[in-house]
Every structure is written in structure tokens, then in C-alpha cells.
């Protein structure tokens, strides 16, 4: 045996090597390292060089921005006619809503979008937010429908454009989400009756196109109702969309429930927590944050699916555009009109997608090893 044992002396920690900064090294590292990368970069640059100038010339240089029909016709084939937007934007945004009353849908929309924005901020996730929503929804319908506090009554058939799109998407998701959670939990219930009911609901609704659901909600439902009783077409469509979206969301939520380790539920049970306490405090907070990307996917889909209500003669944003293009003078410039409406959809969908990324990162604080 040796007389003197070695004493362990840890090596002092040193700073990591500094990366070479600057634009040029970055470009070389990321765009021009190796033959395949160089070739890909050059090809993409070539594509941009071919595509960008014509787009720029058509969309900006030779484009007509004023609501000047004659200028638009003169510029046809080599310049865009944004005049169609300038001329028809009120019709596109508010559909057939009475022209002089259109401040009402505008304020209603602003309230709704404001409430959505407030709901995105996590410190606001408190009980009062529900109260805020109740208030905003009440105001929305009073403003839109009128017949109260000196506002002229406007029947729902004349609602249209952006307010209709936002209202249908928001309300159907607001109701569909809790419903989806219940259905997803029901599919895992030990009670066979509830389980079967939930499976049947999901499979039946998922197996049918949304157009059919809307069509049935709009035309067939009244046939089964007692004579004289009518439900507003808007309400029927809203119910149809909600049930449809909830079926998809339920499957998303179920995915999250299944990904949760069994030990989590056992730990909650061993502490004496009951089913609903375990679900609310342990299961859902973890399961839902696992499925944020898939949930947002469904949300974005549902938002765009509101455009299908045109088949039952409701004029949402896309429907209102068709109304606007009914004008023979401007019908030629449908492409510019479609681009404009597409851009509106894109802004909202892109915002949702960025928010999803942000909230996902935000919610995962601590649940991932740093």
C-alpha cells in the first residue's frame, strides 16, 4: 500500500472558447459551407431574383391605389388594382350591415379583439376574466342586434364580414374547449355509458364534413322542430360549428391525457385528492400544456372554417367579398380582393401561431430541465 494518497484537486473552471462573430463568418458558416449548401443558396437567390422584381412591379410600381375604375382598367395585366379594396372595404369588412350604422360592428369588434388580447396574458387568468367576457359578449350582441338603448334593430341575417367571422370563431371555440375537455375525460371514464356516448359523439361528428353539419344545422334542424318555433340561423350555425370543433379538440385533449405518466395520478390519489381535484390541479394543467401546438392547430383551422358559413347564406369575410365582387365594374379585380382578404386571415393566423410558441415556452417554466 502506498503511504501518501493522492489528494483530489478539481481543475478550475474556464470560459468556453469565444465564437467568431460578425456577418461574414455567419454567412460562410450557414449559407456557404460545403457544395450542397452553396448550390442551394445560389438556387434560392436565383429564384428570388426571378420572382421579386415582377411582383414588385405588379404590386407597387404599376399598381392603382385609388378607387379609380378607369385607371384600374387601363393598368390591367401589368399593374394591380388595389382600388377594389379602396372602393369596397366597408362592404368587405361589414357585409350587408346598414351603412350608416357600421360604427356599431366596428366598436363591437374592437371590444371582442380587446378581450381576446387580454385573455392571452397569463397574469390575467383570474376569475374576473370570465366576468369581462360575459360583459364583452353582452355588449357585442347589444351593439350588433340593437333594438335597445335607442339603437336601431338589425336582424342577424344582415350581420356580415369581419364581425361575423370573429364572433363565430371566438364563441364556438369558447364553448367548444370546455366541452372538449369533458368529452376527452368522458372517453376515459370507467362508466361504460358515458364512455360510449363520448366515443359515439366524436366518431359521428368527425366522420362528417363541416359543410354537411352546417347544412343540416341550417336547413334540416327546423324540420324537426315543432311548428312555429324558430331558432335564429346564426345560433344554429354556431351550435353546429361548436359541436364540430369540440369533437376535434376532444381528441387533441385526449392525447395530452394519455401522455401523462400514471404516477402523477397515483401521487394525487395517495394524497387523498378526489377525482375532480386531481383532474383540475394535477391532470389538466399538465395535459393541456403538452398539447398547446395541436390545440392551436385546431383553433387556426376553426377560425378559417368560419368561411364555410357562406353556404347557408351568411356573409362572413369571404362571403362579404363575394358580395363586393357582385359589382360588374369591379368583378374583374377579384384577385386583388382575394389577396386582401387572405392577408387579413394571415395576420390573425400568424398571430395565433406566434402566440402558441410564446405561451408554450412560458408555460414550460420549470417543467423542463434547464
Amino acid at each position: 500500500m502506498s503511504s501518501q494518497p493522492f489528494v483530489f484537486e478539481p481543475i478550475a473552471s474556464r470560459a468556453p472558447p469565444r465564437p467568431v462573430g460578425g456577418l461574414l463568418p455567419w454567412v460562410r458558416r450557414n449559407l456557404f459551407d460545403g457544395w450542397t449548401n452553396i448550390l442551394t443558396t445560389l438556387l434560392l437567390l436565383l429564384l428570388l431574383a426571378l420572382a421579386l422584381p415582377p411582383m414588385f412591379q405588379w404590386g407597387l410600381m404599376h399598381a392603382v391605389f385609388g378607387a379609380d375604375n378607369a385607371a384600374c382598367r387601363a393598368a390591367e395585366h401589368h399593374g394591380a388594382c388595389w382600388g377594389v379594396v379602396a372602393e369596397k372595404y366597408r362592404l368587405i369588412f361589414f357585409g350587408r350591415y346598414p351603412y350608416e350604422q357600421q360604427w356599431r360592428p366596428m366598436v363591437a369588434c374592437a371590444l371582442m379583439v380587446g378581450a381576446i388580447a387580454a385573455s392571452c396574458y397569463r397574469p390575467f387568468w383570474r376569475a374576473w376574466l370570465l366576468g369581462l367576457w360575459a360583459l364583452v359578449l353582452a355588449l357585442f350582441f347589444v351593439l350588433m342586434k340593437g333594438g335597445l338603448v335607442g339603437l336601431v334593430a338589425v336582424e342577424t341575417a344582415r350581420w356580415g364580414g369581419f364581425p361575423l367571422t370573429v364572433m363565430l370563431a371566438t364563441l364556438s371555440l369558447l364553448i367548444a374547449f370546455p366541452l372538449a375537455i369533458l368529452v376527452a375525460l368522458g372517453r376515459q371514464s370507467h362508466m361504460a355509458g358515458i364512455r360510449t356516448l363520448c366515443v359515439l359523439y366524436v366518431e359521428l361528428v368527425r366522420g362528417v364534413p363541416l359543410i354537411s353539419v352546417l347544412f343540416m344545422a341550417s336547413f334540416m334542424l327546423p324540420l324537426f322542430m315543432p311548428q312555429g318555433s324558430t331558432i335564429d340561423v346564426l345560433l344554429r350555425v354556431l351550435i353546429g360549428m361548436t359541436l364540430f370543433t369540440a369533437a376535434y379538440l376532444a381528441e387533441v385533449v385526449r392525447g395530452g391525457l394519455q401522455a401523462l405518466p400514471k404516477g402523477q395520478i397515483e401521487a394525487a390519489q395517495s394524497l387523498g385528492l378526489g377525482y375532480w381535484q386531481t383532474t383540475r390541479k394535477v391532470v389538466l394543467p399538465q395535459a393541456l400544456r403538452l398539447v398547446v401546438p395541436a390545440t392551436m392547430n385546431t383553433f387556426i383551422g376553426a377560425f378559417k372554417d368560419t368561411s364555410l358559413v357562406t353556404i347557408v347564406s351568411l356573409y362572413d369575410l369571404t362571403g362579404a367579398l363575394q358580395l363586393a365582387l357582385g359589382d360588374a365594374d369591379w368583378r374583374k379585380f377579384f384577385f386583388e380582393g382575394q389577396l386582401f382578404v387572405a392577408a387579413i386571415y394571415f395576420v390573425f393566423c400568424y398571430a395565433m401561431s406566434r402566440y402558441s410558441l410564446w405561451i408554450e415556452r412560458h408555460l414550460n417554466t420549470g417543467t423542463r430541465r434547464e
Partner: protein
Amino acid sequence: MSSENPIIEFNDVNKWFGDFHVLRDINLRVAKGERIVICGPSGSGKSTLIRCINRLEEHQQGRLLVDGTELSDDIKAINAIRKSVGMVFQQFNLFPHLTVLENLTLAPMWVSQIPKKEAEERAMQQLRRVQITEQAGKYPLQLSGGQQQRVAIARALCLTPKIMLFDEPTSALDPEMINEVLDVIKELATQGITMLCVTHEMGFARSVADRVIFMDHGQIVEENTPDEFFNNPKNERTRDFLSKILSH
């Protein structure tokens, strides 16, 4: 060995997983304050045995009484028993979305309806006991395995249970962290709480247990004092098992 007023009593308890007979004619009486170590090869039913006590598993035949209440399908009775039975799992099973402090206050606040402030005081007291107060604001996955398991023990203690169940509490830990967890359990053992611990830490069994139980094939093969169990095992199967785990 058996006492007049056992806090846990198994009477001819049987259980199956499908066709697999996992617990066979279990008879066991645990006295109040008794410390029991259960060992045996994997698949011998030792985890299932202690998981029956707080009904994470349901027994199918026989009677099982915990703290004077017979375990049946009565949800209320089960939740009452779970309040007085704490459990520590092999994989810790802390709630990753809650901070350490929130993990500890969840059950006191929601099950025992204790006000938040009082629950937090109680939680800090338990964290002090497992010597981990400085981590109260962190999330479980930011802690080491040994720290997580100590938090899990503190969480179970927050409901001031009469019985503590440990299901292989050190099996998922790095060797250097095993002792910090065992020290906490040893300290607990001096407090008069009834303990059942599934473990293969034989040194721990020797120093802490009042009784060691050896299980194989779903049955209790041998139960004895630690001294007798290690020095003079009666059953050949026990001798064989001990020679395997003590020889290295």
C-alpha cells in the same frame, strides 16, 4: 409479533392481475408505531402489498383493515384513509408544474381545507425536517434526485399521516444520494410513526426495522426480527435470496 390492536390488518388477502395471482393468502398484522421492511425478488408482490393499503390497488378476496376501517368500494372511506396514509414512490412522482412549496401545500389546502398561509407554514416546517428549505421556490425538475425524494417525503408528511408507505424509495437514486434519503427516513423512524418500507437496503433494514418480511411468488415466506432474519433465516428460499444480495 402481533398485537392486540393492529393499525393494519390483512386477513387472507388475495389479488390477481388478470390471471396472474399476485398476492396469495396474505395474513399480516402491523402494530401502531411498528417499522417493517419488506424485501424479496422483483415480481414477488411486495409493492402490490403496500399499494393495497391505500387502495392504489384493490384486493379481490379477504379483508383488509386500515386504522379501524375496512377497505371497500366506499370512496369516502378510501379518501379518509388516504389522508392518514402517506406514500413515497420509487419515481418520486412530484408534480412538475408546481413549485416545491406548491407540491407540499396542494393536499392540505384542497383535502384538509387548511388556509393557504397555515399550509405554507406547515410545509416549511416539513421542508426544514428534510433539510431542503432553500429550494422551496424551485420546480422539482431543477432539483437532484435525492432532493426530489426528500421533497416527496415532506409532501407526504404534510397531512400528518399515521402510516407511511415507502415503495423502493432509493432504487431510482444515484449511489451518492441514497444516504441523504435514508437518513431522513431513519430520523422519521424515531418519531413513532408506523412505517412499511419496500427496499433492498439491508443495512437500513438492520438498523431501523422492528420486523423484516421476505416475500416470494406473492406470499409471505418469512417474517422475523432483523437479527434473526439476517443471522439465522429459517427458510431455505430466504437464505438463497440473502446470499445473492449480500455477497457482492
